[in-house]
């Protein structure tokens, strides 16, 4: 079995199965079972098949490339790249449906499909009320009644299938163009699912907001794609990496140092090249001369700026998709969608796609870009964590937590922690999906999102409470320091260790580490605040409490499975090095293991190699620090919300400016409203006014002139043209009246005339013939 | 024969004499057959109805019953109704008889024994046989009676309709044979019985039965004898006829029956060739295997045997029609038309296409020795 043939087949099938499910549900959804219930089973079957295929692919990959030999940089594991189907070739531009498969792809496939499978099964229970007619109490119609509509069970699963297809396509894509297509497709799915309750004004607004904010990021991404294309002449990952990280180049021992590609150098040095062409008559000689000049130009730094632009552009797209600092506002609003959607799209997979893309494009990023990424991630994590402190909507807390964790990932990637960032992506996917599903279970039971109305649900919903506790522990990074821990313990430690290492090399950026460490405390605080408020204490709303109940088994089982993953995702198989972290280590892109060289614009910046952070003197203090800040956060939460030694209200009143500031999400929405929305609307009004006054006025004036002229024309028409026509018609009519007399309508007469005419013609012809042609 | 006579006589006289001889022979045959079948019809009807039929005239089996009938008819009073159109009333029976008699012009009785060899004999036979209806219609109209008129209308509708499947069925063996020359078609089926066209392929086998059904309908025999349905129309177009004119109509009917049966025999049942190649064994017919050519007299005798053969086949056909007449109840007129338009024509068309495909698939034929001319 050739891995290069088996993997594309397995993963391709895993990718396309949800598409088949989507197509089937689109066409036959409403007729599948009672009220489309069968659609759910179809979608689950498809994603289960995908999961099986993905796990098979993972096993095949692990068999072919066993882990445990340590990271052998001299013999890197080559990615499997290729094309399934070339779509179009226009000159140099080639667009194809291709694949790029390495350890990261395989792991992502397994993660996405397994999480998606759990969420699909969960949705079967969560969405059951869509099976019959739904009364939406949140929507009031114009006549004052609440909305009644048909259930949309099948539609939900149809979108889920489409999303799975798009997400897997994004992961397996072999070129940037394909990535972009699926990037937009997941955006569409997100849009559709946020707006699932389309009748709710808030839901449709949130969907629009998500879509529009993402467009801002995508604009940057398109700029980045154009920069890449103009400099490299290809979209294929494989070729991009070969050009950016050529073998045997650079001072590093293993080569593959970041190199500005020829195309970008030529682009920056186009004036010099033009001069050479003008000075040299022979084109071949000129080309030769240019070739000789290239290393010199590169050393001068020509083209480096273009590479930076490309990197920043790509990151821009990731900022939008992963809800990073300036564009983070859409994600909390996206919680308007059904909770399984929040779990799948807005926690586990789609928002992680931005991080994934940064990881995928890692070889292209210059140190400057990486620093930007780190700073953006850091700001994001801090802002989001602070907002999460005061949020009372259970899903919004989780949403800000997601934003914050995504900021962690970006930060890790930005400071050179490639494995740490992506490792956190995986562990986060599991425990955040778990947390969301638990919150969904709670909402399902209580019918409200507001934590102040909950409380004491532990007794009513033991399974949900237990699994959610596991999730909280995991995200807080709980564990016995230096011995064992939940998944979050490992990934967050990795990030902090790399940050510590980075801070040691670049003291001026040490604040990144402190913010991240503080963020860890905040994380622990708001997560346990959530858990305590929801499950402990006395019921704050008797009505809600009375109706609460444990969710059905179809929802609990996925929770348990995800909880197990949340616990063990960070572990290696005992006695071996078989685990997620070694797998990612193996998948590390070429040339990134050694840390980054000094950038052109920031010569003092140093990105330490990641393996340095595994050193004992970094690892141990960081672990202890992380544990202690997490415990601090936990204790604070316990003091306020469990033991109630401090009154939360009193605190909030005491720090009311801060509280208001956080409560209103740092005034971001208002800021954007003031900065962008209002000006745009004002501009639109202005344009509309100009349209009405100036352009419409012109048009009206023109129309008036035309009307005047046409009145004149009409007069001419009536008098002369019509007169002529009427005269002709009258003459014709009179002639017709006369001629009519000949048409007796008696066919016998006609026949007679025909016969007589024949005779006459014959006689005439004979006469002519005999006297002219046949004459003497 | 004309060439033979032309040795002694001027050619026009030779031709005239030859024509007279042929006409006499055919007329004799047709009249004899009609007479014989009148008797046979009575006997068959009697036997089928568990009676004896005629027994007295001319011995034990009533041999001379037909002659007695003829005498009676000729001696009857000739009546022309007051409302009738006398000219057409008188002419109509002869038109009918002429048509059915003319059919025999192109029908071969044995290899080369045909009054007028025609390249398009099948076509000619079908065309002329279709003319018989004209006499019936004219007679029905000229009688000046509504029973007669109804009968004539039915006759017209029925015959015009049934000509279509009849011609379709006749075209199928023509397609297999590749010629419309009846002599050639007959000679093609020489040899063993499986050389007969009816056994050429399964479609032709079915075609034969469709042909026979349509033939029965086109000669107005029961169960398709709507034009003279006595239970509804007294006697249809024959109501006002009596005596000699009636008998002429009657003879025309029997002659037609015999003619279509003979055509069936030639087109489907091997013509003058028996089921076994006896004439070849006896040396009465040329043997292609040995290149043997019989003496003219022997060949003549062989042809005579052939004629007996084909007459037996045709007679069997007529007897079959009689059997059907006395066995099956009469159909209603709408059933008759349904039979034609909804069953016979589509079936015949399917058989046509089927045979075409068969010929395309097995150009040499599976059983038939030499497929096509």
């Amino acid at each position: 079995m050739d891995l290069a043939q088996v993997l594309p087949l397995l993963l391709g099938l895993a990718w396309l199965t949800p598409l088949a499910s989507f197509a089937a549900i689109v066409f036959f959804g409403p007729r599948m079972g009672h009220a489309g219930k069968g659609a759910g089973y179809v979608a689950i079957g498809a994603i289960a098949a995908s999961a099986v295929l993905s796990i098979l692919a993972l096993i095949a990959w692990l068999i072919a490339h066993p882990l445990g030999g340590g990271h052998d940089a001299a013999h890197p594991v080559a990615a499997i790249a290729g094309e399934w189907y070339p779509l179009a070739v226009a000159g140099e531009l080639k667009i194809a449906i291709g694949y790029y498969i390495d350890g990261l792809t395989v792991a992502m496939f397994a993660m996405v499909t397994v999480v998606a499978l759990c969420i699909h099964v969960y949705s079967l229970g969560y969405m059951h009320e869509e099976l019959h007619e739904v009364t939406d109490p949140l929507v009031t119609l114009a006549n004052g009644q609440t909305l009644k509509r048909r259930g949309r069970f099948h539609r939900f699963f149809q979108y889920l299938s489409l999303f799975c297809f798009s997400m897997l396509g994004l992961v397996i894509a072999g070129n940037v163009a394909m990535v972009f297509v699926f990037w937009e497709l997941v955006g569409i799915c997100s849009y559709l699912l946020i707006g699932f309750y389309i009748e709710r004004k808030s839901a449709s607004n949130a969907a629009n907001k998500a879509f529009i904010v993402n467009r801002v990021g995508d604009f940057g991404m398109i700029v980045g794609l154009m920069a890449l294309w103009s400099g490299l002449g290809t979209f294929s990952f494989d070729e991009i990496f070969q050009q950016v990280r050529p073998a045997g180049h650079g001072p590093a021992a293993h080569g593959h140092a970041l190199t500005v590609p020829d195309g970008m150098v030529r682009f920056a040095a186009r004036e010099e090249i033009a001069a050479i062409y003008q000075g040299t008559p022979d084109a071949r000689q000129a080309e030769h001369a240019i070739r000789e000049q290239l290393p010199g130009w590169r050393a001068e730094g020509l083209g480096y700026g273009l590479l930076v632009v490309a990197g920043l552009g790509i990151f821009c797209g990731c900022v939008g998709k992963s809800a990073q600092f300036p564009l983070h506002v859409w994600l909390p609003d996206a919680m308007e969608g059904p909770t399984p959607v929040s779990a799948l799209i807005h926690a586990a997979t789609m928002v992680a796609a931005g991080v994934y893309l940064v990881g995928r494009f890692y070889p292209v990023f210059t140190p400057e870009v990486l620093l930007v990424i780190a700073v953006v991630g850091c700001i994001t994590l801090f802002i989001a964590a602070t907002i999460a402190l005061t949020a009372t909507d259970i899903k919004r807390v989780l949403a800000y937590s997601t934003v914050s964790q995504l900021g962690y990932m970006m930060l890790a990637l930005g400071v050179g922690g490639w494995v740490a960032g992506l490792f956190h992506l995986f562990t986060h996917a599991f425990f955040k999906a778990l947390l969301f599903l638990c919150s969904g279970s709670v909402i399902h039971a209580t019918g409200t999102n507001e934590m102040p109305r909950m409380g004491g649900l532990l007794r009513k919903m033991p399974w949900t409470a237990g699994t959610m506790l596991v999730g909280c522990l995991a995200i807080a990074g709980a564990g016995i320091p230096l011995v064992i821990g939940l998944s979050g313990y490992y990934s967050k430690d990795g990030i902090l260790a790399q940050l510590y290492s980075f801070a040691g090399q670049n003291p001026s950026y040490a604040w990144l580490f402190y913010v991240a460490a503080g963020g860890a405390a905040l994380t622990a605080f708001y997560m346990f605040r959530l858990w305590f408020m929801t499950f402990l204490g006395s019921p704050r709303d008797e009505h809600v409490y009375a109706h609460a109940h444990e969710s059905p088994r179809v929802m609990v089982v996925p929770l348990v499975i995800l909880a197990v993953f949340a616990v063990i995702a960070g572990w290696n198989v005992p006695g071996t090095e078989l685990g997620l972290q070694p797998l990612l280590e193996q998948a590390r892109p070429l040339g990134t293991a050694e840390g980054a060289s000094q950038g052109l614009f920031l010569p003092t910046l140093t990105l330490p190699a990641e393996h340095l952070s595994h050193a004992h003197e970094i690892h141990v203090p960081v672990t202890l620090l992380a544990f202690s800040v997490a415990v601090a956060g936990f204790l604070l939460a316990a003091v306020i919300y469990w033991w109630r030694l401090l009154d939360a209200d009193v605190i909030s009143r005491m720090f009311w400016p801060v509280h208001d500031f956080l409560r209103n999400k740092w005034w971001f929405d208002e800021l954007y409203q003031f900065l962008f929305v209002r000006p745009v609307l004002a501009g639109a009004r202005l344009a509309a006014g100009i349209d009405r006054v100036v352009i419409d006025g012109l048009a009206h004036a023109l129309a008036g002139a035309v009307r005047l002229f046409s009145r004149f024309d009409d007069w001419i028409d009536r008098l002369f043209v019509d007169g002529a026509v009427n005269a002709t018609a009258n003459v014709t009519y009179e002639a017709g009246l006369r001629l009519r007399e000949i048409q007796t309508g008696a066919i016998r007469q006609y026949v007679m005339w025909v016969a007589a005419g024949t005779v006459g013609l014959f006689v005439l012809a004979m006469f002519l013939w005999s006297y002219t042609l046949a004459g003497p | 024969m004309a060439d033979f006579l032309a040795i002694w006589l001027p050619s026009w006289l030779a031709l005239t004499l030859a024509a007279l001889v042929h006409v006499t022979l055919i007329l004799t045959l047709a009249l004899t057959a009609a007479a014989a079948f009148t008797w046979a019809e009575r006997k068959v009807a009697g036997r089928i109805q568990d009676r004896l039929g005629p027994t007295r005239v001319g011995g034990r089996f009533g041999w001379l019953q037909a002659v007695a009938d003829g005498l009676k008819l000729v001696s009857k009073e000739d009546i022309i109704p007051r409302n009738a159109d006398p000219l057409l009333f008188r002419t109509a029976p002869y038109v009918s008889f002429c048509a059915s008699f003319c059919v025999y012009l192109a029908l071969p009785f044995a290899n080369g024994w045909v009054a007028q060899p025609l390249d398009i004999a099948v076509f000619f036979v079908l065309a002329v046989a279709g003319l018989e209806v004209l006499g019936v219609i004219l007679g029905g109209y000229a009688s000046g009676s509504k029973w007669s008129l109804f009968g004539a209308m039915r006759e017209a509708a029925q015959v015009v309709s049934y000509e279509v499947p009849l011609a379709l069925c006749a075209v199928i063996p023509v397609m297999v044979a590749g010629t419309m020359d009846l002599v050639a078609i007959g000679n093609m089926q020489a040899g063993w019985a499986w050389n007969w066209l009816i056994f050429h392929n399964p479609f032709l086998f079915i075609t034969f039965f469709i042909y026979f059904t349509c033939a029965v309908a086109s000669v107005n025999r029961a169960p398709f004898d709507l034009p003279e349905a006595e239970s509804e129309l007294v006697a249809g177009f024959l109501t006002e006829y009596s005596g000699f004119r009636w008998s002429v109509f009657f003879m025309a009917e029997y002659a037609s029956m015999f003619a279509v049966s003979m055509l069936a025999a030639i087109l489907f049942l091997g013509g003058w060739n028996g089921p076994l190649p006896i004439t070849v064994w006896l040396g009465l017919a040329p043997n292609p295997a040995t290149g043997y050519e019989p003496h003219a007299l022997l060949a003549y005798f062989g042809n005579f045997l052939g004629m007996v053969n084909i007459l037996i086949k045709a007679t069997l056909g007529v007897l079959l029609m009689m059997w059907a007449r006395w066995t099956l109840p009469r159909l209603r007129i709408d059933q008759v038309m349904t039979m034609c338009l909804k069953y016979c024509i589509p079936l015949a068309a399917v058989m046509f296409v089927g045979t075409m495909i068969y010929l395309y698939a097995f150009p040499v034929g599976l059983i038939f020795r030499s497929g096509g001319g």
Partner: protein
Amino acid sequence: MINPVAEPVSLMHYLVVGAILFVCGVVCMTAKRNAIGVLMGIELVLNGANLNFVAFGSPYLQSGGAPSLGLDGHLMALFVIVLAAAEAAMALAIALSFYNAHATVDVDQANELKR
């Protein structure tokens, strides 16, 4: 005095018969007021023309060297016959329709559109 039956017939003979049929047809069309009579006149006309076609195409009436219509004459006659059948069916249908509407087949009555 030539004995007419001793001479072989020529093309002219056929043409004369055709001409007579044709004229009879024209007269029939013109003189008969019965629609079906008119139809019969048309048939006669067509037959007169057909006879000419066949005569021009006949191998017996061909003089030495003169080209005859040959098979084309036969085919033309064939098409004429087939189309005449179609025309007859159509015309009869029209006549019946007319009869149903007006209870007459007099073509002189068919002048409604004139008014």
